């Protein structure tokens, strides 16, 4: 890995190409752990495909809601520089020291001047199809990519702009822009950027289904892609979330989803692979569509194999079918035909019983697959990377984020088709890999926040300054801002007021600082836009003027004022005055909030010495952190010891021996064999865990912990397992293949039974690896003896993503696949003559199929046991099936809500070795974010308990989502650990005697705001009473 020349220090910066969720996660992990990040995004704003999605499976979370905070964080990060739109056009150098050529097309907007007021778009006369809305709506040639876009800056689409097309005419945007931000003289810019590593996260392109002639996507408006359907469902989409079909805006009552369009299909698209995500997103779309629909909606999904192999996916599928009544039809639809005299569509398909059926639908959604975009293929060529046959990045199972070129890493859908959590894991994993390469350069280029001396205001009475913004005409065009200013001057504590054309402009920041000094102000209110975007800016300003940044309040009189009461200027003005009065009253009660630092033990504890645990340990140690690696057994390796090959055919053992050696040799890793954790105290940055080794206990200090305690094979009671030596589990089959046992070399017939112990009511999940494993072993048997009869009895064949190629190969090589229904599954018996007999009803032929295999392999479930103790000690949750439950299924796949504790491998959910390694590296990256800091930052907006008033009732303890409150039995009071508190205030509202204060949002402040908000009303009431 460390191939840079000796003596030359690596560059402490990383380039992340692609600003989708994977790129964002990689950038945040790196920037948070001491590296400077250049984020190169080809669109004018970051967010990628996830920003376009409506909801996300399996939790139905709103996609934008969970993504947007991460985008904002990226946009504001001191150590992330977003270049958008921009493209990588060349690279030279070597790992640790690359020179990357980046081209930025002109935006024709001066980003430093644009205030995102939208006047340019309002005035722009040219309407063009809105690509963010998949062309279902129009935008202007002057536009913002989408309303929550980061950076929130407009751009001019030169390809559509009338000025460029008609040579010098129009310029309406330039004329009306209140800040003079439009700049038609801008030109494309090229620059060379020095970085130590490159992470590619360019994402995917949805397949264009026009090539499916029989589906007539291009011709029929009511045949839409799943991406278009996401926008149709979206509240911020072209129809504001009303479920209507494009042709006539009628609410559909019957919708069909057609799976595998552009996936598992060589005829139309040369995509032999499975896209891995479409089954789940189709179910989600069907469920959400049913929720949106006022009248009962008939939702039907036409599929080949239902692939719900992820965490909580199977249950989601069952609920969709049983509770929401989504119809699942196992059939590939032959064609879509118009229904004459209507906009409806007729589907022709072959039912499972062989009958050809025609059914009419209002709307048809094509579940389009994922493919690598041509410009990404070009990028790969520019960078000199090897791609696979389907143009995904060539990677090894054992180094899943390393490309063929050292120093360049890959994550997300360009690595192979995958869902969001997997992309996020790989993003963190690639951050870990870059972190290992550049460990020596950590904090060499990353900026640290400047510190400003703070004025002591403890002896001062509140002196508030109020700055009322015109925002050009955005506010002043509706609200009488002078009247608001004059009114503010009459309020208690207010010492100074003024109006600004743009309070957010750079020169006004200087003015605010001067006014603070001149008038000795100690509280500031700005009446302008929204704190969501502008509070940090003003807080920074008052900080520079020596005030604690919390002595600030923003009155939102634009986004929640002039823009929403445009036709009621007087009432809008009255509301603005009220909001200013509330803000002044609130800030007058505000005290400076302390932020403080707690030290960190720069060491990690990794629990579990399997592949995931070892990779996590190596990831942390590679980044320069001390690691304690714990293994219950007397040897490292875990279940991987029993595994023959990764699905790609790469043998596991040499890899495993390699990493065992590396772990044992690594000076920073302490291996504790035959050991377990018996007690844990402390919190993020400062844990103390007790490790018991053969009766002896020692305490180790660590700042972060990674749980990789692994899983087990379910030991079946059924199918003669344990009673007949010819009946093997998948891993035992691996062993037999490795040893070339006569059981397999001499076999003339072999049978695999899938879903043994998985996807059943007591274990309602898919074990994810078994289909691929069986297909792989079947191929192995065919290799030993091409004439061997090999049968795989399955429910849905789940060779997801690129694994589909194995399935294809197996079919080509004569492996016979027989599907069964769970209620009518295979029967296994031992015949009188000693032969094994497997019978299974063949659902296609309807006849029982009788097989007499020489060897029977059972794809048994992956289970976990005894994780409760660990969960309790680290205060982290388990799900119903006993797997560790991460902080967020989608965006925090290796984190827990409890900070400083992470999860990887089978303890989280069944997964193949490549994914376990990626998750382990991701956990290492996330832990490195903690360990690379000099201290834990705490304080600010956090809860505080008054010990004088607390009666120890512990109503707060159980309602804290983060386990940040403990009961101190000795003092009989509850205490907030401010290092863990996230400042939600749920405890404050729950305390019966209100002795908990959420600093910055105290009860007194809330009560005061209530008083002030309703003051005017009591006045009018008196008036009414008097009149």
């Amino acid at each position, binding site marked *: 890995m460390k191939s840079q020349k000796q003596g030359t220090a690596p560059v402490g910066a990383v380039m992340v190409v692609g600003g989708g969720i994977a790129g964002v996660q990689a950038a945040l992990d790196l920037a948070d752990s001491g590296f400077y990040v250049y984020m190169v995004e080809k669109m004018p704003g970051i967010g990628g495909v996830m920003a376009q999605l409506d909801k996300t499976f399996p*939790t139905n*979370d*709103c*996609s*934008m*809601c*969970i993504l*947007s*905070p991460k985008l904002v964080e990226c946009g504001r990060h001191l150590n992330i520089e977003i270049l958008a739109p921009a493209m990588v056009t060349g690279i030279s150098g070597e790992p640790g020291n690359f020179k990357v050529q980046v081209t930025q097309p002109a935006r024709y907007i001066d980003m430093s001047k644009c205030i995102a007021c*939208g006047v340019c778009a309002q005035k722009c006369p040219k309407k063009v199809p809105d690509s963010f809305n998949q062309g279902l709506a129009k935008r202007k040639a002057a536009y913002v990519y989408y*309303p*929550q876009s980061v950076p929130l800056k407009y751009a001019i689409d030169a390809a559509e702009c009338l000025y460029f097309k008609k040579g010098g005419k129009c310029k309406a945007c330039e004329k009306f822009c209140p800040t003079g931000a439009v700049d038609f003289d801008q030109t494309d810019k090229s620059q060379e950027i020095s970085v130590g590593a490159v992470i590619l996260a360019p994402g995917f392109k949805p397949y264009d289904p026009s090539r499916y002639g029989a589906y007539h996507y291009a011709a029929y408006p009511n045949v839409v892609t799943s991406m278009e359907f996401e926008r149709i469902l979206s*509240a*911020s989409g072209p129809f*504001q*979330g009303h479920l209507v079909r494009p042709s006539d805006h009628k609410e559909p009552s019957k919708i069909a989803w057609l799976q595998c369009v552009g996936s598992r299909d060589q005829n139309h698209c040369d995509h032999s692979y499975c896209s891995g995500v479409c089954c789940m997103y189709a179910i989600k779309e069907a469920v959400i569509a049913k929720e949106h629909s006022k009248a009962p909606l008939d939702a039907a999904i036409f599929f080949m194999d239902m692939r719900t192999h992820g965490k909580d996916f199977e249950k989601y599928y069952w609920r969709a079918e049983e509770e929401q009544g989504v119809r699942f039809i196992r059939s590939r639809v032959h064609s879509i035909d118009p229904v004459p005299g209507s906009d409806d569509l007729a589907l022709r398909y072959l039912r499972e019983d062989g009958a050809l059926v025609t059914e009419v639908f209002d709307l048809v959604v094509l579940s389009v697959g994922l493919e690598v975009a041509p410009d990404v293929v070009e990028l790969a060529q520019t960078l000199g990377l090897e791609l696979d046959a389907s143009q995904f990045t060539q990677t090894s199972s054992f180094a899943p984020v390393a490309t063929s070129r050292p120093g360049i890493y890959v994550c997300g859908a360009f690595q192979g088709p995958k869902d969001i959590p997997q992309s996020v894991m790989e993003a963190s994993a690639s951050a870990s890999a870059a972190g290992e390469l550049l460990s020596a350069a950590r904090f060499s280029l990353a900026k640290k926040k400047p510190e400003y001396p703070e004025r002591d205001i403890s002896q001062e009475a509140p002196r508030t300054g109020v700055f009322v913004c015109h925002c050009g005409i955005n506010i002043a065009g509706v609200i009488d801002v002078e009247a608001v200013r004059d009114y503010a001057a009459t309020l208690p504590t207010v010492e100074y007021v003024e109006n600004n054309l743009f309070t957010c402009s750079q020169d006004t920041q200087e003015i605010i600082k001067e006014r603070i000094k001149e008038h000795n102000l100690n509280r500031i209110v700005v009446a302008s836009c*929204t*704190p*969501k975007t502008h509070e940090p800016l003003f807080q920074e300003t008052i900080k520079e003027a020596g005030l604690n940044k919390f002595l600030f309040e923003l009155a*939102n009189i634009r*986004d*929640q*004022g002039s*823009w*929403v*009461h*445009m*036709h*009621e200027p007087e009432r809008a003005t*009255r509301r603005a005055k*009220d*909001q200013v009065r509330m803000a002044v009253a609130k800030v007058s009660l505000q005290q400076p909030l302390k932020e403080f630092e707690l030290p960190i033990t720069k060491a990690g504890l990794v629990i579990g010495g399997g592949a995931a645990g070892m990779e996590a340990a190596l990831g942390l140690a590679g980044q320069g952190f001390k690691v304690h690696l714990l293994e219950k057994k007397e040897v490292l390796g875990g279940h991987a010891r029993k595994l023959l090959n990764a699905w790609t055919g790469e043998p596991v053992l040499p890899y495993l021996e390699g990493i065992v050696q590396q772990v044992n040799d690594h000076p920073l890793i302490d291996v504790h064999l035959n050991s377990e954790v018996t007690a844990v105290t402390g919190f993020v940055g400062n844990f103390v865990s007790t490790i018991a080794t053969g009766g002896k206990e020692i305490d180790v200090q660590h700042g972060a912990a990674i749980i990789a305690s692994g899983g087990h094979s379910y030991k079946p009671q059924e199918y003669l397992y344990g009673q007949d030596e010819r009946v093997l589990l998948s891993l035992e089959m691996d062993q037999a293949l490795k040893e070339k046992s006569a059981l397999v070399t001499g076999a003339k017939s072999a049978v695999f039974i899938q879903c043994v112990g998985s996807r059943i009511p007591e274990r309602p999940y898919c074990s994810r690896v078994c289909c691929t494993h069986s297909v792989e072993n079947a191929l192995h048997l065919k290799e030993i003896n091409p004439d061997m009869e090999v049968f795989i009895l399955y429910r849905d064949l789940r060779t997801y993503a690129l694994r589909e190629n194995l399935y294809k190969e197996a079919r080509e090589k004569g492996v016979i696949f027989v599907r069964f229904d769970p209620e009518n599954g295979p029967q296994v018996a031992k015949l009188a003559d000693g032969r094994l007999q497997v019978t299974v009803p063949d659902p296609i032929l309807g006849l029982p199929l009788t097989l007499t295999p020489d060897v029977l392999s059972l794809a048994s479930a992956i289970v976990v046991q005894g994780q409760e103790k660990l969960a309790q000690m680290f205060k982290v949750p388990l799900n119903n099936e006993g797997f560790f439950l991460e*902080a*967020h299924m989608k965006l925090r796949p290796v984190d827990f*809500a409890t900070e400083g504790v992470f999860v990887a491998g089978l303890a989280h959910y069944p997964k193949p070795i490549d994914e376990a390694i990626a998750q382990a590296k991701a956990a290492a990256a996330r832990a490195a974010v903690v360990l690379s800091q000099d201290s834990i930052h705490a304080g600010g*907006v956090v809860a505080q308990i008054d010990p004088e008033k607390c009666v120890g009732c512990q109503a707060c303890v159980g*309602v804290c*989502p*983060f386990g940040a409150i403990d009961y101190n039995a000795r003092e009989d009071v509850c205490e907030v650990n401010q290092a863990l508190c*996230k*400042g*939600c*205030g*749920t405890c404050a*509202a729950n305390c019966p005697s*209100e002795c908990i204060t*959420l600093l910055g*949002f105290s*009860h007194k402040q*809330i*009560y005061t705001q*209530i008083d002030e*908000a*309703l003051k*005017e*009303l009591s006045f*009018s*009431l008196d008036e*009414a*009473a008097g009149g």
Partner: protein
Amino acid sequence: MSDQEFEPKILGFFCNWCTYAGADLAGVSRLQYPSNIRVIRVMCSGTVSPHHVLKAFQKGADGVLIGGCHIGDCHYLRGNYMTIKRVRFLQDLLKFTGFEPGRLHLEWISAAEGPKFAQTVRDFTEKIRKMGPARLKSARAA
């Protein structure tokens, strides 16, 4: 006081991450809604205690609208679990005592639901307008 003259006073408690952002989106999208509302931004809808709501009614609010993240979307994971418990309980208690439970409304509005935000405020304002001034207020004024 005739219906014509009655301008209801609505107090909104909106969580920073979802509903407040949804309100901003309504603004960015220039969706119009009545100006009767006054907004208190809170970090999580779980910060709103029944005391706060009762105080608002005591001080003359005609309607109280609480907005939070959809269940599952809470920025603080499960803070809004407490919101729904408190609001449902309080609504039922208000009903029993005749204190007009319809004047308290909880709506989950995401950061992406600008139109839903505007519609909710429109509908709620209209509903409260039809209900007339709060009984508590009339009783006090009497």
